[in-house]
């Protein structure tokens, strides 16, 4: 139906989407991986991981694989502990900082825009094309241009992270807001709820699972952009270390940086999965 005005719409609520999942960027499947149950299962998972790493270690050892082809896990782990303070800590914190500042800006603007297009549906058609362009274009491509303007420091990277994560948050949140069951809105209106009350008490909680998914995808894109832009140019950060160590063929160090980046990604994923379980568990 073309109109968003409740009063001018034929009541046909059964055809409305009832669930908040789905949409242009639907990774709700990401958030619903089964969690290990009990100590025994966790132990099994960890044991398998240990076995895989050990196996890799021995295969590399037996085949006499040179270090520059593939670093042995023990060397990577050793370097990770031994050189953490001297080689990795500053870079890790710089990447984390770029990522968080960028995500904060991007996500707040994205969320604000999502609220705006929900309350003023007419604006959607003007804003959405830009959002689509931003979602589909890799923001790392802007780094050379941003560096011309903002130099070699953190600023261009923060901007790129914001541009990469914001649209993801916006597009998912807007989808969540828009899918709010029309009958629930009618219910609120029948009790005399103001537009703000409808938003706070019905639309926002209803959209929360989608917003969390938006943050999850947004932060994954954000991390990708942060590391990617560090690889493109400028000083510091884990991406920069990747390029540096690989150019010197210091593969144990390279592997250690890779492990740190992976750890960051998994930590983000776990964090948002936890948030999703805690605040959006009703969705099931």
């Amino acid at each position, binding site marked *: *139906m*073309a*109109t968003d005005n*409740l*009063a*001018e*719409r*034929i*009541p046909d*609520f059964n055809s409305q989407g009832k669930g908040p999942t789905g949409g242009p960027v639907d990774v709700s499947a990401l958030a619903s991986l089964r969690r290990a149950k009990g100590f025994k299962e966790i132990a099994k998972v960890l044991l398998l991981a240990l076995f895989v790493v050990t196996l890799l270690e021995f295969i590399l050892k037996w085949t006499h694989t040179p270090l520059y082809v593939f670093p042995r896990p023990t060397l990577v782990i050793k370097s990770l502990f031994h050189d953490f303070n001297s080689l990795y800590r500053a870079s890790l914190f710089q990447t984390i900082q770029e990522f968080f500042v960028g995500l904060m800006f991007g996500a707040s603007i994205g969320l604000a825009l999502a609220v705006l297009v929900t309350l003023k549906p007419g604006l959607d058609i003007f804003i959405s094309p830009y959002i689509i362009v931003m979602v589909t274009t890799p923001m790392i491509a802007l780094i050379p241009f941003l560096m011309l303007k903002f130099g070699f420091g953190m600023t261009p990277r923060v901007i790129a992270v914001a541009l990469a994560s914001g649209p993801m948050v916006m597009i998912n949140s807007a989808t969540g807001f828009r899918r709010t*069951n029309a*009958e*629930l809105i*009618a*219910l*609120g*209106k*029948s*009790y*005399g*709820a103001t537009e703000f*009350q409808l938003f706070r*008490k*019905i639309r926002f*909680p*209803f959209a*929360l699972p989608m917003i969390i998914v938006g943050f999850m995808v947004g932060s994954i894109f954000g991390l990708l952009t942060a590391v990617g832009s560090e690889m493109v140019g400028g000083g510091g950060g884990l991406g920069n270390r990747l390029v540096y160590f690989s150019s010197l063929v210091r593969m144990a160090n390279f592997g250690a940086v890779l492990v740190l980046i992976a750890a960051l990604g998994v930590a983000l994923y776990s964090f948002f999965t936890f948030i999703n379980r805690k605040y*959006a568990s*009703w*969705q*099931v």
Partner: protein
Amino acid sequence: MTQATKTRISINNVSKIYKTGSGTVDAVKDFSESVKDGEFVCVVGASGCGKTTLLWCLSGLHPSSSGTVEIDGEVLLAPMPNKIGMVFQDSNLLPWRTLMENIVLPFQIKKKPVNHVLIQELLEVAGLQGFENSYPGELSGGMKQRGSIVRALAQDPEVLLMDEPFGALDAFTREEMNLFLLKIWAKTQKTIVFVTHSISEAIFLADRIWVMSPRPGRLARVVDVNFARPRHIDLQFEPDFISILKGIRHEVEGSKVGKGN
């Protein structure tokens, strides 16, 4: 019963036209009727005959295209949260709130103190005591719908508008809900307008039935139902009940759009 003669709702020549992409739809046309205080009116008709639209016009959620609705002599222009309570086909309990938090929601919206005494009384009649802290996902369909009726009645509205509230429930639960509704109606003496597509449900519940003809939705017939109250569930097997049922059924069948679809 001097109260019973007072008119609660009066509907004067109400029409509702929807604008759609492909033109206009006359959903309700020239509808005039009135509901007395404490009366139980059911609206029946074939699907798509505009009965839900009529109810939404009475709720103030859909302004009528022409004509007026008056509640206690006051022209209805917007929802009247203190006078009208609404129950939908879906229970519409917010899934992230417990039953009690759902019942309290309208109080929060209106920024009114919560009437715990009334809520407890209603929960008892609804058989929902002990489920206050359950989430809707943990309740059965019938319990959810009883919860939504409690939510509406906790506001102590004078008028209760019900839009096929038991349409999604199975036949047995539905009978149970009908008995529950009559019990709570006898206790609270609310004025009820109840939309349903089940003619027997309408006869079982109502004092009066408005039969609507579809496209445009007009009032085809008004049927008085004079069975004594409290009504027993076996009433539906009485010959008088069946003859009313047959009469309304013919009316609805005969007026169906594009007969035989």
